[in-house]
C-alpha cells in the first residue's frame, strides 16, 4: 500500500478510481473529488448493490490510507461506535491498587481513567493521527441507525472531536475522509445532509456495466458478457420490486462463468435467476413468456 497524493482534477480522480477497477460515472468522480478538496463528508445514497461501499474501499486503497469502517445497525450507541471503558481492566487496577496499599482516591480515579483503559471504536480511531495521512472513514448504511445516533454524528462531523467526560477532549489533527452510505430504508435528516456533498448513485448504463463486468470477471467470454448485461438492463426496465444492482450482475456473470456457460439459454437463466432477483414475486414474474421475450432480446445478434 503506497500513499499517493490527492488528485488535482476530476480527470485525475477518474483515473485514480479506474486504476483500481472502479469505473465511476463522471458525476460521481466529480463529487468525490470535491469532497476531498473541500474536506466535506460525501453522502452516497442509492439502491443496494450499486457500488456505494466499494468507492470507500477503492479510495482508501488508491490513496494508501487506512480504511475504518463503521457498520450501522439499530441501537448503535456511543459504546460501540466511539469508545468505552474496559471495566474489567479497571477493576483489576483498583484491586491491585488496594493490594499495594494505595488509598489516595484522586490518584486512583486518574489512574483508572487513563488512555490504556479506553477501548477505541471506529469513530474515535478515525480521529487519531496516522502516518499515511488521515484515514478514510466509511459510515455504512447510516439509515439503519436511529435518529439519536445521527444527531451525535452531526456533532462529530462538524468539529471532528470527541469529549470523554472522565478523560478529556480528543481532536483530530487532520480530519478523516468521510464517506456515508444509505440504502434509504428511512430518510436521513436534512441537518446531516446539509453538511455533506450528496450524490445519488444510479444503476450504470449498458456500456459502463459491460466494462465493469469485463474488468471484474476477466474470464468471461465477450459474447456472454454482452448477453448478461443486456439481460440485466432489460430486467431493470421491468417493474420489479427490487431490480438487480451491479453487484448482482457481477455475481451472475461469475456464476455463469463457473458453470462454463458460453451463451444464455432459458434453462440456464431459470436455474441461476436467484443470483439476480431476490424476491419470490419477482422470480415468479420472470417465467414463461416474459423470460422468453427478454432472453430473445438479449441474445439477438445486433
Amino acid at each position, binding site marked *: 500500500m503506497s500513499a499517493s497524493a490527492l488528485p488535482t482534477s476530476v480527470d485525475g480522480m477518474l483515473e485514480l478510481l479506474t486504476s483500481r477497477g472502479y469505473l465511476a460515472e463522471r458525476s460521481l468522480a466529480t463529487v468525490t473529488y470535491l469532497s476531498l478538496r473541500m474536506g466535506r463528508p460525501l453522502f452516497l445514497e442509492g439502491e443496494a448493490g450499486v457500488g456505494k461501499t466499494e468507492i470507500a474501499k477503492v479510495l482508501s486503497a488508491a490513496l494508501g490510507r487506512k480504511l475504518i469502517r463503521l457498520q450501522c445497525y439499530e441501537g448503535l450507541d456511543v459504546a460501540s461506535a466511539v469508545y468505552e471503558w474496559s471495566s474489567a481492566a479497571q477493576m483489576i487496577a483498583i484491586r491491585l491498587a488496594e493490594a499495594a496499599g494505595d488509598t489516595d482516591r484522586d490518584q486512583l480515579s486518574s489512574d483508572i481513567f487513563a488512555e490504556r483503559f479506553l477501548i477505541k471504536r471506529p469513530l474515535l480511531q478515525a480521529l487519531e493521527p496516522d502516518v499515511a495521512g488521515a484515514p478514510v472513514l466509511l459510515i455504512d448504511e447510516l439509515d439503519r441507525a436511529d435518529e439519536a445516533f445521527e444527531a451525535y454524528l452531526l456533532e462529530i462531523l462538524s468539529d471532528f472531536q470527541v469529549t470523554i467526560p472522565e478523560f478529556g477532549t480528543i481532536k483530530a489533527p487532520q480530519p478523516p475522509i468521510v464517506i456515508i452510505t444509505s440504502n*434509504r430504508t428511512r430518510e436521513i435528516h436534512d441537518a446531516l445532509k446539509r453538511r455533506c456533498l450528496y450524490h445519488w448513485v444510479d444503476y450504470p448504463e449498458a456500456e459502463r456495466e459491460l466494462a465493469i463486468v469485463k474488468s471484474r470477471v476477466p474470464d468471461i467470454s465477450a459474447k456472454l458478457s454482452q448477453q448478461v448485461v443486456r439481460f440485466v438492463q432489460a430486467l431493470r426496465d421491468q417493474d420489479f420490486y427490487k431490480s438487480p444492482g451491479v453487484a448482482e450482475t457481477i455475481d451472475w456473470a461469475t456464476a455463469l462463468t463457473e458453470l462454463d456457460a458460453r451463451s444464455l439459454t432459458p434453462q440456464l437463466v431459470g436455474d441461476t435467476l436467484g443470483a439476480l432477483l431476490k424476491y419470490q414475486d419477482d422470480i415468479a414474474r420472470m417465467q414463461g413468456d416474459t423470460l422468453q421475450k427478454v432472453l430473445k432480446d438479449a441474445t439477438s445478434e445486433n
Partner: protein
Amino acid sequence: MTTIDHLNPPTGHMADNVVGFARALRAAGIPVGPGAVIDALNALQVVEIGNRADVYATLEAIFVKRHEHMLIFAQAFDLFFRAAEDWKHMLDSVPLPDHARKKPPPASRRVQEALAQPSMRDEEQQVQEQELRLSVSDKEILQKKDFAQMSAAEIAEVTRAIANMKLPQAELRTRRYRPDAKGLKLDMRRTLRSSLRTGGEIIDIRKLGRIEKPAPIVALLDISGSMSEYTRLFLHFLHAITDARKRVSVFLFGTRLTNVTRALRARDPDEALASCSSSVEDWAGGTRIATSLHSFNKLWGRRVLGQGAIVLLISDGLEREADDKLAFEMDRLHRSCRRLIWLNPLLRYSGFEAKAQGIKMMLPHVDEFRPVHNLTSMEGLIEALSAPPPPHHRSLIRSAA
C-alpha cells in the same frame, strides 16, 4: 412619549385596543397570556405609535412565539388596525365572512370570525355549544380546494377534541438504553465511577433500562370524490399528530400518490392544508387504489416502514377496477409494516356489508378494520393507535367478508 413606567401600563384607548387585539389573536388560535399584553403596552410606549410598521414589529415580537403563527398575526393585524384612525369602531368595521367578495387567503376566515365575535369573554363556552358541521364539498375534479375556509368554530372544536385525545403512549422498545434504577442491564461505567467515591468498593450498582418510543405512523389517505366529506377532517387530525409525534408520514392518494409529510409539518393547520392542496393534483377525482398502493410500495415502502411503523389506511375501498393486483399490493403492504389498520367511513352504516369487489380484495390483508366518521372517527383513530388489537378482529373481518 414620556418615561416608561413598567408598573403602571397606560390605560385608555390604546390599552383597550391592545387587549382587544390580544383577544382576537387568542380566538384565532395564537396563545397570548395577560403577561404578554402588559409587555406589549410597555413596549408601545417606547416605539412611535404613529408608525404602523414599528407598531407591527413591536407587537409581533411580543405576541408571536412560533413561526407558524406569523401569518395569522399578519392577517389579524391588518384586519384589526385597518382603520387605525377609527379605533373605536374597530370591531364593527371588520367585514363578516359572508361579505367577503373574493376568496380570502388561508386563515383569513378564522381571523375575521375571531374579530367579528361580539363578545370574546365566553368564547370557549360558545365553542363548546357549537356542533361540528361537516361541509360536504362538491365533486370538483382537478380543482384546487381551499381548505382554509374552515370556520373558527370548527377549528376550535376539532383542535379541542384533538387536544383532549390521549395520543398513543410509547410502546416500542428500542435498542437504546438509558439510566434506569429498575433496569435489567448493568451499567459498568457509572457503577465504577460511583465506586471511586468509596475508594474502589462497589456499593451501589447502577442499571440501564430500555428506552421506549412511540411507533412511527404512516397514514395513507384516500382523497377521491367519495371520501371528500372526511378528507379535511382527517388532514387536521394528521396535522395534529404530526405536531405531537416526531415520526409521522402522510400520503394522499386519489388517482396518484402524493407525499405531503413536509407540507403538514410545523405550520399552522390552514397553511399546512393549503400547501397540501397545492401539491396535490387530483382532489376528489376517482380512485385507483391498486396503482397508488403499488407506487407506495415501490417508491416509499422501504423508506418509511423501516422502524416498525403502523400504517393507517383511510379509504372507503370503493375501487372500480378491483383485480388481483389490488390484493397483491395490499398483501405486500401488510407484510412490510408492523400493523395495518384500515379505517373506513362506510362502516358507520350498521347494515354495511363488504359487497364491493375492492373491499373483499383488501379485507384479508388488514389487521384491523374500523369505522370512522366525524369527531367520533378520530377518537376511533386514537383508539386504534393506542389500544392493543381486539382479540376477535379476524372474525369481524370474516363476517364482513
